[in-house]
């Protein structure tokens, strides 16, 4: 465990994923009444992990990106829902967004507690008490 601190990297990626997803949900919510706005979302962390097993760091996903570990065009974080839209073309459902928001909050809390707990373990290993 102590040579390779995978758990920190994993919880970091998880919290980060929750943060970006939260930003998208907030964006959807703010645009809940904008005509023609399509709801956006990230894929869940589980699926994200399966497609990015190599590492959790930013990658060059487009030609314009400066650096990164090679292109991975298959992974596009933004999925547009093709569900039923309102007459004005808006596809945001406040209820769905609320449920997703709670999910994201729990994921973020989980990631932070894992991080905190791993830190406690490390600390107790190095402390003299």
């Amino acid at each position: 465990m102590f040579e390779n601190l995978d758990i920190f990297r994993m919880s970091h990626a998880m919290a980060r994923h929750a943060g970006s997803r939260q930003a998208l949900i907030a964006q959807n919510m703010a645009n809940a009444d904008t005509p023609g706005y399509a709801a956006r979302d990230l894929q869940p962390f589980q699926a994200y992990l399966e497609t990015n097993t190599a590492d959790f760091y930013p990658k060059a996903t487009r030609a314009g990106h400066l650096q990164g570990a090679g292109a991975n065009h298959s992974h596009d974080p933004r999925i547009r829902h093709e569900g039923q839209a309102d007459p004005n073309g808006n596809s945001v459902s406040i209820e769905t967004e609320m449920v997703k928001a709670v999910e994201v909050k729990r994921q973020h809390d989980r990631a932070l507690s894992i991080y905190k707990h791993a830190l406690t373990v490390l600390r107790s290993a190095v402390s003299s008490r």
Partner: protein
Amino acid sequence: MSEFAKSLDVTASGLKAQAQRLRHLSENIANADTPGFRRKTISFQTEFTAGKGTGRVETGRVRLDQSDLKQVYDPTHPMADKTGHYDGSNVNLVIEIADAREAQRSYEANLKMFEQARQMSSGLMDLLRR
């Protein structure tokens, strides 16, 4: 800008837009009996900065509803024409109230998101505490 700062920013823009919508709605309701008043409508649109969508929402131009004004029969009214009718407003209170409810609902949803982003970022800050 961090994701939390960004979501706070976007949520704040949503709150502002809904509040503005409510303002125009209350203007309409207040002028429901003003002769010749046309109801004001505003549209929402996604903000663009330097050709790039920021995700923030903003209100578009105020437009006047061009539907026909209600004809009110009152021969004693100073503005009445020969037939005894004058132009009322085209405000429909039911539409305004329904719209206000929707604005309130969206406003509350945005407020919830603001609160949640705040909680998540303060949870992150708590990591620094022992």
